[in-house]
């Protein structure tokens, strides 16, 4: 039992579990993990000068302290702790920046497409072929990768304007990075903006960049169950490109199963079968892009 406050519960101090009196003896700040109510949420220093917080819980166990708050007095009807209603999304800042990007892009009539996939699905090759096929249509590219400017170099080799963002340890592009890139690239009116996200099927799903649509690229060698394993991304995507379709006859890929699984996690998703290498399905993909740009720039 704790010799200071009479409690015999396990606490967390310095990231590890120990008994309450050990924490006091060592003079460590600690949290109570026990499930009884102390009916106060304030900092509660004992004589030992070690700060710790009592956990508020529903467990009925009456144990009240008075006059031990920061003011050292108890005032009936007045709690020393205040509750502030916040009701704010954790990603509110990103969402606000994304809306700002969207306003800029809408004003310019720019169609922004956020390309998302696992690493190795063929995003960059698809993008290079798309740029070539679009001919002299004005466009710009934002490339996201953890390291290197290899992808932006590949895009620039097609003659397109590209900007590389290295996220370092980051696993996704966020709206602030994209906003800065838009400011630098200054997309022309009625143009395409392709944003090639970091190869990652998890995190980019949650981060709005201000794009018109997320397009998920899934290659036929990745496994039919991928949409079920990573449902969030395929739910967030407007269109899925089933890429490397030319390889399907050489593998055991079950294209119908790919499509059924995509529709299972997102009944509204559009699907186009494409081979960036042979050009199969590229017409359909280009039509998808052109019709959306026309609608946007109109």
């Amino acid at each position, binding site marked *: 039992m704790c010799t200071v406050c009479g409690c015999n519960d396990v606490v967390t101090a310095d*990231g590890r579990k120990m008994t309450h009196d050990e924490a006091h003896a060592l003079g460590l*700040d600690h*949290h109570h993990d026990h499930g009884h109510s102390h009916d106060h*949420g*304030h*900092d509660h220093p004992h004589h030992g000068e070690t*700060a710790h*917080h009592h*956990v*508020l819980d529903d467990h009925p166990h009456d144990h009240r302290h008075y006059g031990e708050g*920061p003011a050292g007095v108890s005032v009936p009807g007045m709690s*020393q*702790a*205040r*509750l*502030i*209603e*916040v*009701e*704010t*999304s*954790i*990603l*509110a*800042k*990103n969402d606000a920046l994304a809306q700002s990007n969207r306003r800029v892009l809408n004003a310019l009539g720019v169609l922004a497409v956020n390309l998302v996939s696992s690493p190795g699905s063929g995003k960059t090759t698809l993008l290079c072929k798309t740029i070539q096929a679009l001919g002299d249509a004005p466009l710009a590219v934002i490339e996201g990768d953890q390291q290197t400017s290899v992808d932006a170099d590949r895009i620039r080799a097609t003659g397109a304007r590209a900007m590389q963002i290295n996220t370092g340890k*980051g*696993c*996704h592009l*966020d709206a602030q990075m994209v906003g800065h890139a838009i400011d630098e690239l200054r997309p022309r009116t009625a143009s395409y903006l392709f944003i090639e996200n970091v190869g990652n099927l*998890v*995190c980019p*799903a*949650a981060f709005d960049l201000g794009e018109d649509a997320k397009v998920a690229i899934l290659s036929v060698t990745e496994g039919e169950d991928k949409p*079920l394993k990573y*449902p*969030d991304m395929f*739910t967030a995507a407007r269109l899925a490109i089933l890429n490397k379709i030319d390889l399907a006859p050489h593998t055991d890929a079950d294209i119908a199963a790919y499509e059924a699984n995509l*529709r*299972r*996690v*997102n*009944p*509204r998703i559009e699907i186009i079968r494409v081979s960036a290498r042979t050009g199969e399905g590229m017409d359909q993909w280009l039509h998808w892009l052109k019709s959306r740009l026309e609608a946007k720039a109109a």
Partner: protein
Amino acid sequence: MHEMSLAEGIRGIVLDQARAHGFTRVTLLRLEIGRFAGVEKPALEFAFDVVMRGSPAEGARLEMIDLPGRAMCYDCLKPVEIDDRLAPCPLCGGGRLLPEGGDEMRIRDMEVL
């Protein structure tokens, strides 16, 4: 997924709120996390402890409240609640469900001094 970024988002909101409401310490912070939000709770707890250092929420207790997963069934066309992202429709057994809620990640409230 990106619990470190989420913790940084929380820190930003804490700092904004501290300026707006004039408090110096947060003792309890309650989050609402939807079932489909993909948040790894132990990872967020760890990131929270690390990222809040030096902020008013350093040492604050973090409480996470689950919100249900809501979806529209494209077979029976009814809104339903499901626990699991790949669960079938509880009404008709259909497998084509589009999430319509349950991806929330928000701060509900804070207890402050």
